[in-house]
């Protein structure tokens, strides 16, 4: 599943650490989410979407899923 967390974060001029602090997660977790290595829980996904004021299905796009991943 691809996501637009990195794109949105950069648009708002935030560092990974700042975004992590705002969401209540570590910088490492932000890195893992951005790189697609970690799929956040539903509550965290909604928190991310609300933080950026973007619908959750626009922030996390299952259509972008790479076959077999």
């Amino acid at each position, binding site marked *: 599943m691809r996501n637009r967390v990195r794109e949105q974060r950069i648009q708002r001029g935030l560092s990974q650490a700042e975004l992590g602090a705002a969401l*209540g*997660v*570590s*910088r*490492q*977790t932000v890195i*893992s989410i951005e790189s697609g290595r*970690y799929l*956040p*829980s539903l509550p*965290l996904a909604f928190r991310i979407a609300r933080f950026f004021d973007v619908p959750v299905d626009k922030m996390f796009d299952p259509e972008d899923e790479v076959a077999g991943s």
Partner: protein
Amino acid sequence: MRSIRDGRLRVVVPALAWGGALVAAYGVGRGWGAAGAMAVIMIPVAVAIYVRAGRGTDRAAMMIGGGADERQALIRRRAWALAAVVMYAAAVIGGIVVIALRGVGHWSSYWPFALVALAWAAGYNAGEAGYGAAHGADYVPGADM
């Protein structure tokens, strides 16, 4: 910063308590001279744990436990689960090897392996029951209150 320091103590104090219990057991069984040497070895270990738990890494957050976010908590749970499986396998294999070498009549040789395997089984069953598996797929925690 304060929470990190408190978190470090949450790691170091239990480590020291377990180490102290080990030293006391060794002292009772083998004499207090050797136990004293063992206690001295524990000090740098405790310092190393304290330093490591204070770093802003995944591992430090997982050591502290309460400071971990959901991904770190998931990694921690998976690591615990893997450790439990490895421990269980080691207990079963160890028990089988002892029985093969000494026969089933030597209970005193293989009871520690049996104890670990039984503790694992009891823990697994308690976990299944506690996390809802015993209630079936329709169970919703809190709905029957």
